[in-house]
């Protein structure tokens, strides 16, 4: 019953999306059309209905209703409740439903609160949002119905991949989706502004909080996903340039560029066409990412053939959405001038430079990710991995970081480097010091060395915009910028330290053996069997000492899940201020010893700490913008109220 209810809600939501598109389109042709006034309320109700459909699916997973095909294929009654619920989006249909849910709710929210743009632009924007949503509704209803029944229902479900049964991963996909789909709002705003030819500072100011919000979620999602890969896969790597990872990195790169060009447009009425273009590109990258991940085309062209209808459907959606947006852009680009001019040495100049660098990095990641598909079409399988991505992206990352250090110090419009040279001195001194230290430590030349030298200087440089400012009166948005840029430096330092200073030890140890890794002494003191709700495990007990200090107990496990049957390792980590000890229990050897994998990774937590700082910077900037907007609304209302009263008195 619940499944049919959910399906009905989904159909209704789809029908309302069609109405929203129709109303918006009519309103563009004729502003007085009666349907135009219905666009906002319809958008809100559409969002609510699709949310109800999603809630129904969550409930079905919560009660493990095995008569629903999706539940039977992806859940199991013995799973802990949190993973039953998380199982809702741990599969194709459920994650696509989550996608349209976020899209519907975001559209509804915009319809409810956004009052700054001309009404015609808003209606065109909501029509754009409905246009994209409709495609995904069609995809769900015709090619991947999440509510399909199974008759007769099986006695037990097939379970969820144990690798996904982890608290980090339970919330990683929804976070990323909020980011992916949040960018659809930027896309729709760009469409709306193009249709009504209203590309200006007001458009940028309206779009900015939405882009910021989506970007914060993307940043958090990528950071959390990277940490998950780090501790869950059990090999100590944190970024693999895996296509799925790249699929999340590409929208982030585009959103980062969009965020910055939005600021230029809002402050200086420059970069109009470029900002609109990035708005289209950012969401296109989200859709390409979804296509790559969801179609299964990534691992192999053959996986694509398992269900070619789905892949073809998403590909067609992608072509229609991106294609029509680009056609609209091409038609209107001539009427959207670039706006105000500026000199090379100016805040805008630096922002444009880094925008182009970010776009180039995006280009490299896109080409590197798609290229294996291309060669496979010619019958040759190749792999593109870190040896390609690291140096190729570095070509653009290094100049970008250098400009990042200088840009925030420059004035808008026109400036001279000589004016800011005093502020550049401390970062240069710090980087020179880092260079000496790195050479003294005997780090081999290479990218990690570049990172170790750049990061400390960049950290200092990112603080320099605070120099000579009244800290308590500084706008929150400036704090946000400082924190986010410092976060980049922190993360970079962590990455470089991990590559340059990690030590690894693989050993087969008897119980009682002591192993040294870096400054640590690790004793294998015992192996115990333990069990959880849907697994059993062998748990190693390690007593670890840092430079002969007190013993700390660590318990890595080798787990066996029974539904589906699969073995995984659960690593144990111990974090100190200066790094992380990473331990993994492997298999038993024939002579009764146990495989241990141990890593000492100096400063590695800074990678994710930096990621969170970047997101925190985004939160500060968003809070600053939203508070300023609210204050403006309050003041405006007060003035209107006072005028009204004076009018009455007079």
């Amino acid at each position, binding site marked *: 019953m619940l499944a049919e209810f959910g399906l009905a809600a989904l159909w209704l939501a789809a029908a309302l999306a069609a109405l929203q598109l129709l109303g918006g389109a009519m309103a563009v042709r004729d502003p007085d059309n009666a349907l135009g006034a219905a666009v906002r309320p319809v958008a809100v109700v559409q969002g609510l209905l699709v949310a109800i459909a999603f809630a129904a699916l969550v409930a079905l997973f919560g009660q493990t209703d095995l008569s629903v095909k999706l539940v039977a294929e992806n859940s199991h009654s013995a799973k802990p409740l949190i993973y039953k619920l998380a199982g809702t989006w741990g599969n194709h249909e459920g994650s696509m439903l989550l996608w349209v849910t976020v899209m519907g709710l975001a559209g509804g929210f915009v319809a409810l609160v956004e009052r700054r743009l001309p009404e015609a632009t808003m209606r065109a924007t909501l029509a754009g949002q409905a246009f994209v949503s409709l495609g995904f509704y069609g995809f769900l209803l015709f090619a991947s119905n999440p509510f399909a029944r199974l008759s007769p229902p099986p006695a037990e479900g097939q379970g969820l991949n144990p690798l996904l049964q982890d608290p980090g991963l339970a919330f990683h996909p929804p976070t990323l989706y909020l980011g992916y789909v949040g960018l659809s709002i930027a896309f729709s705003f760009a469409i709306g502004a193009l249709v009504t030819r209203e590309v200006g500072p007001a458009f940028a100011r309206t779009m900015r909080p939405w882009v910021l919000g989506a970007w914060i979620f993307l940043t958090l999602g990528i950071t959390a996903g990277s940490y998950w890969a780090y501790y869950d*896969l*059990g*090999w100590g*790597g944190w970024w*693999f340039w*895996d*296509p799925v990872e790249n699929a999340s990195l590409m929208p982030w790169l585009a959103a980062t560029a969009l965020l910055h060009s939005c600021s230029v447009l809002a402050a200086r009425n420059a970069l109009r066409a470029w900002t609109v273009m990035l708005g289209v590109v950012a969401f296109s990258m989200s859709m390409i990412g979804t296509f790559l991940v969801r179609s299964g085309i990534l*691992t192999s062209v053959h996986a694509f053939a398992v269900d070619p209808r789905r892949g073809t459907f998403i590909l067609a959606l992608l072509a229609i959405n991106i294609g029509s947006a680009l056609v609209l852009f091409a038609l209107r680009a001539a009427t959207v001038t*670039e706006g105000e*001019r*500026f*000199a*090379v040495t100016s805040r805008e*100049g630096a922002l*444009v*430079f880094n925008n*182009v*660098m970010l*776009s*180039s990095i995006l*280009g*490299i990641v896109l*080409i*590197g990710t798609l*290229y294996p598909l291309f*060669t496979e079409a*010619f019958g*040759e*399988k*190749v*792999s*593109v*991995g*870190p*040896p*390609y991505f690291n140096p*190729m992206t570095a*070509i*653009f990352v290094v100049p970008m970081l250098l400009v990042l250090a200088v840009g925030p110090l420059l004035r808008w419009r026109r400036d001279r480097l000589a004016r800011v040279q005093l502020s550049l001195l401390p970062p240069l001194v710090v980087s020179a010091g880092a260079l000496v230290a790195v050479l003294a430590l005997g780090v081999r030349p290479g990218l990690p060395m570049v990172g170790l030298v750049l990061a400390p200087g960049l950290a200092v440089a990112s603080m320099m915009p605070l120099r000579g400012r009244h800290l308590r009166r500084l706008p929150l948005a400036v704090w946000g910028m400082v924190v986010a840029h410092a976060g980049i430096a922190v993360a970079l330092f962590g990455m470089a330290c991990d590559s340059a200073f990690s030590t*690894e*030890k*693989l*050993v*087969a140890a008897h119980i009682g053996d002591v192993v040294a890794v870096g400054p640590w002494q690790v004793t294998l003191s015992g192996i115990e*069997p*333990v*069990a959880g709700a849907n697994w*059993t495990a*062998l748990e190693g007990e390690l007593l670890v000492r840092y430079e002969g200090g007190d013993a700390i107990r660590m318990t890595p496990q*080798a787990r*066996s899940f029974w539904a589906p*049957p699969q*073995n995984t*390792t659960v690593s144990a980590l111990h974090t100190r201020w200066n790094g992380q000890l990473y331990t993994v229990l*492997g*298999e*038993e050897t024939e002579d009764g010893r146990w*495989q241990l*994998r141990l890593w000492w990774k100096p400063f590695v937590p800074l990678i994710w700490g930096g990621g969170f700082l970047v997101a925190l910077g985004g939160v500060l900037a968003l809070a600053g913008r939203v508070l300023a907007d609210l204050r403006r609304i309050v003041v405006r209302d007060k003035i209107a109220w006072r005028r009204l009263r004076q009018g009455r008195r007079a």
Partner: protein
Amino acid sequence: MKARVFAWLLLAALAAPVRADDTMPPAPYAYRQLADPRAEAKAEALMETLRCLVCQSQSIADSDAPIAGDMRNQVRLRIARGEDPEEIRAWLVQRYGDYVTYAPRMTRLTWPLFAAPLGLLALAAVLLRRRFTGGRAA
């Protein structure tokens, strides 16, 4: 109490065969490092750029698959014998195809991959030049 311990031991024993049939022909260096740290570092650098053939997308340095263990063993043995890392890569490519290396070779089919950064640099230069010269004129 005793019964519980026994139950766990039984469970562990049941789990053991699952783990045991993973063992292929003996590969002593699958999970063992070379004694010489410099040779080991060389081997690790190479292993991180070789792809596990059965995993989704992991290097052989990051994989628990038996074939990855076998390949790690091969890499370590050959490095210990003094072979050049690129020779070992070439040998593996000859054996398993281009798919095995994460460092794509420049071939008739892959040259655009290496031309891409140059193309992007040129494009970036054009974009920036146009904007800035336009700025000066205004």
